């Protein structure tokens, strides 16, 4: 949990993103993934809705990373490769909300929903989504959710 907050703080005011992997619902490894939303053409390639696209188009590439993330596919591949090498499976997809609460946004739910069929197609189980909010800088808030069939429910996470 400290590592998640450390990643979020390091990239603040930009959104960070990454994976947690492990075995049998126990997380043992964290993979930081680069947020490439500021790359040319990146936001057009993501499944953002029209409102989000309009918002992003008014921002500089750098500013886009304050309200959105797109995982670097190359680093995502490297992470999955490392998981396979160590016999780990993807358990959690995380990202931070530097200025907003630790709950999935409309965009988060839309894209999680679209990815739901991808996970099974890729022979991966549905991950838990974790959000780190830095709204209160002194007290970061970390929460976990399941996003299934476009509905969000809290996920139980125990810190050992």
């Amino acid at each position, binding site marked *: 949990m400290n590592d998640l907050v450390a990643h979020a703080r390091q990239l603040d005011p930009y*959104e960070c*993103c990454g994976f947690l992997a492990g075995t049998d619902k126990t997380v043992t490894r964290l993979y930081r993934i680069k947020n*490439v*939303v500021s*790359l040319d*053409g*990146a936001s*057009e*390639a*993501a*499944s*953002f809705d029209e409102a*989000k696209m309009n918002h992003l188009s008014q921002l500089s590439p750098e500013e886009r990373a304050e*309200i*959105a*993330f*797109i*995982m*670097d*596919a*190359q680093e*995502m*591949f490297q992470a*999955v*490769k490392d998981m396979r090498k160590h016999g780990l499976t993807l358990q959690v*997809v995380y*990202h931070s*909300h*530097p*200025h*907003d609460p630790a709950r*999935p*946004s409309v*965009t*988060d739910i839309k*894209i*999680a929903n*679209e*990815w739901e069929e*991808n996970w099974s*197609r*890729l*022979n991966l189980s549905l991950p838990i989504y974790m959000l780190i909010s830095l709204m209160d800088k002194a007290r970061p808030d970390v929460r976990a959710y399941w996003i299934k069939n476009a509905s969000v429910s809290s996920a139980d996470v125990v810190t050992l």
Partner: protein
Amino acid sequence: MIKVRIPTPLRPLTKGQGEVEVTAGTIVDMIETLDTAHPGIKARLCDESGELRRFVNIYVNEEDIRFLKGKDTSLKAGDEVSIVPAIAGGR
């Protein structure tokens, strides 16, 4: 024929079709063929040097082509290719 799944952001280029069929021997071939039928699709998938963009994933029968031979991965009739935008989200 090879079945190619087209993600939502690219469907305006395929007249809304979520699946198209192409004949191609490799991923590079497939992208060229798709671009002939649906101009503009290559620029969305590849950068100026022809490399796959860093926010695009392509899977052949469930496997990331980065685990195979990248854009030189060969294709055979009956293969299913999925073009998938990177995981994204935000506040």
